[in-house]
C-alpha cells in the first residue's frame, strides 16, 4: 500500500499520496484511447445491411434495372412509338420478311429481343419504358411521402398539446379514407378534365400519373407523419433537446438538427415500404386504362393489351409481368432488409 510510505502527521491531514498526481506516462495514456473506433448509427446500420446478402442482391438488381431503364433508350435502335405493319406479332428474336431480306443482303438488323406487339412495335423498348415509369412513380411517391410526412409529423410531435391533437385528428380522418378508390375517382375525373381542356403537362403525364402523385400528396403521407410524430414525441424528452433549448436554439433548428436525424431509421423504413405500393397502384390504374396516356407504355397497360392475343402470344404478357414482379420483389426484400438493419428491435 502506498499509504504506508507516508508517515501520519496528524489526524486531520488529507494524507494525499503524491504518486497519484504524477503526469501519466505515454503507456498509460495509450490505455485511455478507445479500443474500437466509434461507429455512428448510420454506418452501423449500413454495415448490417451490407451483411444481408439477399438485400444486397436486391440493391444490385434495382440498380441494374434502373441503369437499363434510363440508359438503354438513349441508343436503342427502335423507338416505343414506331409502328410497322410488316412486323406484327413477331416472336422474340424473329425477323419480319422485310428485315430477313435486309439480313440476306448483309445489312445488320438489331433483333427484336422480346418480339413485337400487335402494331409491330418493338416490345423490348416498350417494356423498358414501362419499367422506367414504374421506377419513377415509386421513387417520386416515396419522395412526396417523405417531405410531407416529415414536415407534418415533426411539427405535430414537437409542439404537442392542442396543435398535436388537431393535427392528429386530421391524420386519423385521412387514414380512414379508402385510398385506392379515391385514386380511381380522381383519375377518372382528371382524365375527363384533360379530354375537355388542353393542359399539355397533364396530357403528357397521363391522368393516372397526375392523380397518383396528387393522392400520394394528399393521402399517403399520413403513415409517415404518424411514425415521425411518435418518434419525435420520445426524442423531445431527451436531455440534449433540453440543452439545445436552454442555449436558445429555435424550434426549427431543434427539429432540423436534433430530431429529424434521429428519425432517420423510421423514415427510411416507411419510405421503402411505400415504393412497392405506389408501383402497384400505378400498374393497377394503367391496367384499367386510367394510367399513362397512349402511346406511352406502362407495365400495367402492356399487360392489359397482352390479353387480346393471350393464348397465341403469351410472351406479350410474360415480359411485363416478369418485369413488375422483379421490381416489386426487389423493393419488398430491400425494404425488409432495411427494416432489419435500421430497427434491430423489430427483427423477427
Amino acid at each position, binding site marked *: 500500500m502506498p499509504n504506508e510510505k507516508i508517515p501520519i502527521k496528524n489526524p486531520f491531514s488529507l494524507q494525499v499520496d503524491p504518486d497519484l498526481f504524477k503526469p501519466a506516462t505515454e503507456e498509460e495514456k495509450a490505455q485511455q484511447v478507445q479500443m474500437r473506433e466509434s461507429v455512428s448509427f448510420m454506418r452501423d446500420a449500413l454495415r448490417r445491411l451490407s451483411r444481408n446478402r439477399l438485400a444486397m442482391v436486391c440493391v444490385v438488381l434495382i440498380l441494374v434495372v434502373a441503369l437499363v431503364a434510363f440508359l438503354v433508350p438513349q441508343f436503342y435502335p427502335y423507338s416505343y412509338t414506331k409502328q410497322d405493319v410488316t412486323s406484327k406479332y413477331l416472336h422474340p428474336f424473329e425477323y419480319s420478311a422485310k428485315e430477313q431480306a435486309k439480313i440476306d443482303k448483309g445489312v445488320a438488323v438489331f433483333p427484336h429481343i422480346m418480339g413485337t406487339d400487335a402494331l409491330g412495335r418493338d416490345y423490348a423498348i416498350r417494356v423498358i419504358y414501362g419499367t422506367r415509369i414504374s421506377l419513377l412513380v415509386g421513387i417520386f411517391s416515396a419522395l412526396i411521402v417523405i417531405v410531407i410526412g416529415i414536415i407534418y409529423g415533426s411539427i405535430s410531435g414537437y409542439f404537442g398539446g392542442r396543435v398535436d391533437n388537431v393535427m392528429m385528428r386530421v391524420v*386519423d*380522418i385521412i387514414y*380512414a*379514407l*379508402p385510398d*385506392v*378508390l*379515391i385514386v*380511381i*375517382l*380522381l383519375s*377518372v*375525373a382528371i382524365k*375527363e*378534365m384533360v*379530354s*375537355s*381542356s388542353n393542359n399539355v403537362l397533364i396530357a403528357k403525364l397521363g391522368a393516372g400519373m397526375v392523380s397518383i402523385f396528387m393522392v400520394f400528396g394528399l393521402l399517403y403521407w399520413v403513415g409517415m407523419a404518424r411514425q415521425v410524430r411518435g418518434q419525435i414525441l420520445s426524442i423531445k424528452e431527451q436531455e440534449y433537446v433540453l440543452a439545445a433549448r436552454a442555449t436558445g436554439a429555435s424550434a426549427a433548428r431543434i427539429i432540423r438538427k436534433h430530431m429529424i436525424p434521429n428519425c432517420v431509421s423510421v423514415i427510411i423504413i416507411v419510405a421503402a415500404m411505400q415504393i*412497392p405500393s405506389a408501383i*402497384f397502384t400505378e*400498374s*393497377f390504374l394503367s*391496367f*384499367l*386504362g*386510367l394510367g399513362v396516356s397512349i402511346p406511352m407504355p406502362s407495365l*400495367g397497360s402492356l*399487360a*392489359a393489351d*397482352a*390479353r387480346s392475343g*393471350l*393464348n397465341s402470344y*403469351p410472351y406479350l*404478357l410474360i415480359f411485363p*409481368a416478369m418485369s*413488375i*414482379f422483379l421490381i*416489386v*420483389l426487389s423493393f*419488398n*426484400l430491400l425494404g425488409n432488409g432495411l427494416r432489419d438493419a435500421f430497427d434491430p428491435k423489430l427483427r*423477427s
Partner: protein
Amino acid sequence: MNSKFLIYMFKRLGMALLTIFLVIAITFFVMHAIPASPFSSEKAKSDAVIKALEIKYGFDKPLGVQFLNYLWGVLHFDFGLSTAWVGFTVADLIMGGFSYSASIGFTAAFIAIILGILFGCLAALNRGKWLDSVIQVVTTALVSMPSFVVATLLLLFVSFRLGWFPSLGNQPGGMVLPIVSLSLYPMAYITRLQRSSMLDVLGADYIRTARAKGVKSSKVIYKHALKNALTPVITYAGPMMAYILTGSMVVENIFSVPGLGRLFTNSMLRTDYMMIMGVTIFLAFMIILMNFISDVLYKVMDPRIDLA
C-alpha cells in the same frame, strides 16, 4: 361490455360515419368538378335534348342543393338513375353486380383467412426448417405480384394451357379461377402476419409456464398460443376488404364476371357519372364498415389494448 368499451364503440362509430360523409362529399364534388356535361359524350344529341336531360336528372339546380339532394338519396340507398344503362337505377345495378362480387369476394376472403392462418402456424412451428423456408419464399413471391398479373397468368396457364377451368366466369366452374386469383395475395399476407405473431407468442413466458406445467404440446398451441396470435390478423380484415374489392375490378374483367368491379370499369368507359359515384360510395361503405368491425373485434379479442 363495460362503459369504457361502449364509449370507444361510439367514438369509433362516429369516426366511421364522418368518413362515410367525407367520401360522399369528395366523390360528389370531384365528379362535379368535371366541366363536361355527363350527356355530352352521347352521340347525336341537340343542346335542347341535353338541357332537358339535365333538368330531368336535376343537374340544373345549384351545386349545394344538388349535394344535399344526393346525400338524402344516398341515405335511402338511392343513387339516382344510370345514364348509360337507360331505365335502370344505380342501386339496382349495384345490387345486381354485388351478388356476383360478394360470392367471389367472400369465398376468396374465407379461403385466404383459413389457409393463411394454417400456413402461418405451420411456418412458425417449423421455424428454420425446409417447410418454413418454402412457405416464406412462396408468400414473398405472392405479395410481389399485382392482382392482374396473378389473374392473367392463371388464365394463361391453368385455363388456356392446362384447360382445367373455363376462362369465362359464367360457365360451370368458372368462378374457381377468379376466387383463386383474389385469394392468393391476402392469403400470403395473412400467412406472413400469422407466422410472425405466432413466433412472438411462442416466445412468451406464459407459453413456457404452460409447457413447464406439463400441458400437452397440442393444447399449448391451440389453447394458449393460437388464440393470442390471431389478434394481429383481425386488423388485416379492413385492408383485405379493400384489396378484394379493388382487385375484383381487374379480376372480373379478365374472367368476364358480371360483378360490381366490371360494372365499375364499364361505367368508367361509358362515362356514367351517376354509376361511378354510386359504386365508389358503395365500395367505400363496405371498406369502412369492415374497418369498423375489425377495430371493435380487435378490442374485444384483446382486452389489454388501451381503450383510448
